[in-house]
């Protein structure tokens, strides 16, 4: 962490952050080093982690079975820590498309995708994803056939969802690395599907 919150003009809320943090440090509740390490940790958590899980599930049917049965355990098997949370992987099929939202706040499978994008936290997405998911998906450029069912999963503080997209045709024989490269963050939120370039 380069900038450590030294004392330049702050707005009210930045001032609140510095003040709260310094008080917590003085009281021995957290240390600056812990804060810095946690930030570093969060920066390193990117959607590539989730893509690795998806690519592995596409390549290894036994892992896929485990992932769908117990997402937390399956991720731990890959060395990905899912602290104190239940991770539920939901599988897209030709009949059902899944998407995730948090209507209450901004719960998100951070351990696999990093911090959520702004739009995921927005009032518009959170309000409409559960009411008119098809229209929302169309705004993301995803037009699904009318007969395909859309299932919207509302995340909670201790239950997070991850969409397991369908493996596109034409990827037979691909390595897990090649597969992971076509699994974007939005595919795992369910507002996109993987495509071969």
């Amino acid at each position, binding site marked *: 962490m380069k900038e450590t919150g030294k004392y*330049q003009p702050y707005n009210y809320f930045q001032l609140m952050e510095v*003040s709260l943090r310094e*008080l917590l440090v003085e009281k021995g509740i957290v240390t600056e080093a*812990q804060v810095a390490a946690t930030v570093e940790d969060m920066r390193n958590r990117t959607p590539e982690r989730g893509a690795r899980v998806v690519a592995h599930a596409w390549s290894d049917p036994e892992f896929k079975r485990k992932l769908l049965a117990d997402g937390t355990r399956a991720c731990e098997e890959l060395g990905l820590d899912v602290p104190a949370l239940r991770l539920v992987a939901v599988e897209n099929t030709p009949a059902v498309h899944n998407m995730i939202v948090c209507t209450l706040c901004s719960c998100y499978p951070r351990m696999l995708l990093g911090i959520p994008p*702004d*739009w995921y*936290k927005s009032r*518009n997405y959170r*309000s409409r994803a559960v*009411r008119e998911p098809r229209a929302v998906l169309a705004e993301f450029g995803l037009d699904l056939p009318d007969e395909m069912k859309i299932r919207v999963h509302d995340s909670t503080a201790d239950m997070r969802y991850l969409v397991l997209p369908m493996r596109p045709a034409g990827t037979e024989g691909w390595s897990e690395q090649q597969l992971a490269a076509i699994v974007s963050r939005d595919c795992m939120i369910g507002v996109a599907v993987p495509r071969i370039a």
Partner: protein
Amino acid sequence: MGGLPAGRVEPAEHDNAEWEWRVDALMTLLTGVKGGKKLMTVDELRKNIEALGPDAYDRMSYYERWVSSITQTMIQRGVVTTEELGRKMEQIEKRGRE
């Protein structure tokens, strides 16, 4: 807000500013995810965000709501007092001007 009418979803992305990352880190640390003492829960974060009022979404940014809520929770839990916080904020502002 789930189910309420609302506008088009703008595909906005956002790079956290340093202070925003730190707010996020404080939340992680205070909820004991890293094995430290558990001094608040995600539900308290949400409760105190909701207590900011229905227009908080329009007035405040995401991490502004978070830092307000975390601070409020720490006051409610008696971890810090309003006086300590007020003094600290004043002190830091002064330090900034020097």
